[in-house]
């Protein structure tokens, strides 16, 4: 397992965190390559099912990031997202998922430095937890 690298599915809001990731690129801020980004219009678009699906698909971690509360491009989408995520997190932890497997953050499109700091934290947290097992769908056995 020494060469195991976590794979993390990220759901980014198009208007802020996706932009922060773009800006980190423009500023050539190196960071680990463990995430795969799915671009969405708003963190409010993230259905809890997406998070479950990613875990089931074998993601070692899920990271959702949107605009700072109050700065939503769609006025208040991220407020709803924040409420949903709090419930979701509690539920997942209640079901036995390690805290840290699923993470949320708020990063504006100007905060490339914060983006790099958070991506490092997310990846390190997941790395410490090791490969995800709980929700992963069994691999089909091929004879």
């Amino acid at each position: 397992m020494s060469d195991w690298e976590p794979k993390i599915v990220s759901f980014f809001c198009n208007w802020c965190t996706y932009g922060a990731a773009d800006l980190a690129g423009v500023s050539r801020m190196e960071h680990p390559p463990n995430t795969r980004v799915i671009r969405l219009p708003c963190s409010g678009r993230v259905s809890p099912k997406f998070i479950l699906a990613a875990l089931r698909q074998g993601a070692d971690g899920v990271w959702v990031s949107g605009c700072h509360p109050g700065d939503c491009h769609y006025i208040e989408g991220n407020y709803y997202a924040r409420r949903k995520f709090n419930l979701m997190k509690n539920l997942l932890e209640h079901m036995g998922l390690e805290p840290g497997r699923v993470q949320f953050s708020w990063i504006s499109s100007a905060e490339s430095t914060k983006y790099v700091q958070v991506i490092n934290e997310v990846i390190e947290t997941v790395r410490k937890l090791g490969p995800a097992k709980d929700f992963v769908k069994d691999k089909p056995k091929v004879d």
Partner: protein
Amino acid sequence: MVKEGKYKEALEIIMEDLPLPGVLGRVCPHGCENACRRCEVDDPIAIRDLKRLAADMCDPREINVECAATREEKVAIIGSGPAGLSAAYHLARNGIKSVIYEALPQAGGMLRVGIPAHRLPREVLDKEIELVTNLGVEIKLNTPLGSDLTIDDLFSQGYKAVYLALGAHKGIELGIPNERAAGVCQGVDFLREANLTGKTDVGKKVAIIGGGNVAIDVARSAKRLGAGEVTILYRRTRTEMPAWEEEIQAAEDEGTIINYLTAPQEVLVQDGKVVGVRCIKMELGAPDSSGRRKPIPLPGSEFDLEIDQLVPAIGQRPDLSALDDVAGLDISRWGTTDVDPITYATGHEGVFAGGDLQTGPWVAIGAIAAGKEAAESIARYIDGIDMAKGREPITYDDPVYRPIPKDEKVSARAKMPELAIADRAGNFDEVELGYSEDVGKAEAARCVNCGYCCECYQCVDACGADAVTLITHAESTEVLELDVGSIIVAPGYQPFDPSKFDNYSYSKFENVVTSMEFERILSASGPTQGHLVRLGDHKEPKKIAWLQCIGSRDQNKCDNSYCSSVCCMYAIKEAAIAMEHSGDDLDCAIFYMDMRTHGKDFEKFYNRAQDSGVRFVRTRIHSIEEDDETKSLTLRYATEDGRIENEVFDMVVLSVGMETPDGVKDLADMLGIEMTSGNFAAAPTFAPYETSVDGIFACGAFQGPRDIPQSVVDASAAAAAAGEFLSDARGTQTKTKELIEETNIIGERPRIGVFICRCGTNIAGVVDVPSVVEYAKDLPYVEYYTDNLYSCSQDNQEAMVALIKEHNLNRVVLAACTPKTHEPLFQETLMDAGLNKYLFEMTNIRNHDSWVHKNNPEVATEKAKDLVRMAVMKVALMEALPEAELEINQTALVLGGGVAGMSAALSLADQGYETLLVEKNKELGGQALNLYKTVKNEDVQTELKGMISKVEGSPKVSVHLETTLDSVDGFVGNYKSKISRNGNSEDIEYGVAVVATGGNPYLPDEYSYGQDPRVLYSLELDKKLMANDPSIKDVNSAVFIQCVGSRNDDRPYCSRVCCTHSIHSAIELKELKPEMDVYILYRDIRAYGEREYLYREAREKGVFFIRYSVDNKPEVKTGDRLTITVIDHVLEKPVEIEADLLTLASAIVPNANETLSQFYKVPINDDGFFVEKHAKLGPTEFATDGVFLCGLAHYPKPVDESVAQGKGAASRAVTLLARKNISTSGQVARVKPDVCSTCGVCIAVCPYSASYFRAEDERFFPGKSEINPVLCKGCGLCVASCRSGAINLLGFGNDQVFSQIFAFNEAI
């Protein structure tokens, strides 16, 4: 380039123009250094010596000189001096081979035979001549032009052209007796022999006549060849001597004696040999034609000098013997050839001339330039094209230079190391040794880059996309003439430069910064990436001070007596952000005079800052001192109770104001725009967007200091004003893009094209692009796959269109940069290929991959494959999405007939739109009916009457008085409402609505209002003034109390207008009765912008301003006497004022807006004002499309701002109306009504009120949820919230996102 150590590149640049860098780097008289702008600081850059360093560090022979393909034509060049070599070099670059005929046994001309080796080592010259011959130039030595070889011979040998560059090798005689005696030798002859053979006859006592470089060269050579005593005789003084100062100095150092003001009269001869020279002393007379003072012999001062060799070196001229009989060749009276000054062509067809032969003896660089020009002429001559066209010398009348920084430090020019004097005797070793690399780099770093671009052309080499080429680089200013019907002037402002305030030492102390610089320090993309540190030592500051009113409200130190309006608010914002960055232990103090937070929601921000610990200190800072070691700053100031404090801060931020730049003043002058005393555009209150010139409108800080929301409002207003002016021409110059008919792909199997962008090396330098392309090949439904160098280039766009058609692709994936910037471009490409633009998915393998994983190329490649796979899986499920077109009803509704509403209605009507103006009162005018005068002393009622009559007279405005709005149905472009008047209801239809419902004065419940007739509120005083009420004349003492009902717990906002209003009324009272005592009791005087002048005028007129604290409000006692008691802020004691009139500056409160808020689904804030779309960028519109906002309903504001906002709202509304129809986005939410459980969550969460329930009586799905695609912005909130799974977001659908999730990890 030398500074960067790029010697090769430096030589490449030099050799664009001249082939002999090492030679010129030694012998050039560097006239360029006199023009160097470093001279304004100290000494010029050692340009010549740096050129030499480049040639020392890199062998010029190794430079690859690009030459055009070799042609058949050949050219003969006579003379291998600098002119001949330069012509040969430049001809060779043009592909034209030449043969140089040289009379002497060695090549180089005067460079060889005129300049001694101690100045120009032979190997340097040989090397650079070789550089020319390497290009295929042949040099025939010992082949003089003459009877054996005439110019006609050359033509008959097949040469197409001849270039004469024979030089000037013949010494000029002195014209004194015995000049031909043995022992007399011309300077040029002396040098030629010495330089060719290494020796020549040298006397023991040598006298040299002349003051030029030849004289010095002879002297220094003679010394080296063993002469005992060498004397130079020069007829003027050292000041006039044409030789270079450093050469004269070197000659003297080496032992040469120079006799100034001495001229030879006769050569003394014995036995036919020179034994002496008779000289005469001279004195200087009046200046002659050369500008130098003319030497005049002093009679009787003759003396004899004993010598055995005399070398005249007073000049040289061309030897024309070989050119005597050349037809058409004209010789000037100076003995030089006449040529065309631009082409260098002589009178003989195909013969050109240059160098010393043509100019007379001159510098090498001149000859090289002449050679280059001649080469151009010869090339054109051979091609048979006009030789002169486009070659007129360019003169720059007004060159643009970067100003030299005021704080540029003086630094000494690098000294050239030299051979020790003792080591020079008896040899011709080079004396100047050249700079070392370090010294050279330091010298090059002295350059102040005054030319902006140094034309190193490194950008041309670096640009892989060929966007910057030599041709585009050479583009220069072009004058364009534009045909316009109206002009909007928005040139902005400049931040005040505080370096002129010596007491703040901005330019001296590194930790005193301007607010603009501090903004950059706070910015995530700033110099410290948002880390709040001091720039000098990178320490985090613990204490920061803001100093307000730097360059504002100040007549002593600068002329800006206005208030800059924005600085108080931005200082608070900066302090708040600084605390967010550094935590609560950061101590922020703002030193101010009046805190002016008069903008919408600004007062609340101010209150929050106070609560979170920002200190507000009311004082003006006297001076700042810096600690030498810690670089911290001590502020000295007086506290409110009169103590002197010294407080140390780590940083000081100067809150600099706004001012109009000189260039803008010139522009205004040119346009004839009248300016105010503060240098802002003057405008009437009822037309604030106008300038004094018809058809020219203004907006932004050009009109006066203002913040972003106000600037945006003004901009919209100016646009509307121009729109009214040009409404007849609307749409006449627009172009419509031709739309390609869309291919129907329904039912087709996905045929996906995958395009991987290399982005030059941006992606391909890290990600293994070919392997990603190879990988894409095997993904499902992929029919075509390729990579592009730059996907976004014009030619590639066209190629993509062709490929989509050729391969019949119906979905496209592009792996490239970020869709945030480039998606629309490629969607257009799809449309050009006849595909629906939503059949496209872009994935980001640059910003998110190659740029950030460059040290991990293998993993980056894997990541790129994953991202491409996810995109392919998603795009396979994409559908063609329709963009419905909706017609917009061309009628506008304006709610409210006050100044703002009328302004909006008039503008809409004047731009050609039918407008319904609904007013609940009996007459138009709103609150302005109660106002007396504007702050600019215009009579409000006169202006208002004019406005009302325009509205009533407008054929496009239908006014509905005493009318209310009863219902609103529909959405942008298609509204339906009921309005009623006296119970009679009417249905109206309209496309857009402007909300201008205004506000009201707050009726005070304090200060005995309503209990005493002497207590009024502001508008009541205005009424008295309007009516010319005689009782005012009886008033001996008048008091104003500010902030009545504003800035308190009930209404925590500033009503913006009251300070100026009270000050203006106070002045009015003083003018009516100068002996009246007038007091204004205030908390902060908020006379923002140029209103500050009124504040000053009131103080000058003797109005008393007494500040009170909110915890200690004034007390009013009524009875026979009306007394007001207030604690004076200076005396700190209660002051009792007896008054005959007390005016309360009461707040502005909004109308009850709740019903309207529900009608249009637009929000109101805690204070009851409407909430605009965006506080800064959308101040005149709502988040809901088609509804606009202006006037007091938005926030309290004076008349001019209401007029501007009304017009601004109309302007925004017209952007919709003018389109006539709108197309909805395809990426909207859609309900499956059969799944909907009618829970209503989607309706509750939608920020845009796009969700609604179908009517219960509808035939299909009654009562189920439905989403209006026109209002939907596609955020997807309802989709993620729908508990029945009934809603899907087109373009980001559940199945599409799931397909991405399922595809992220291929192994599973």
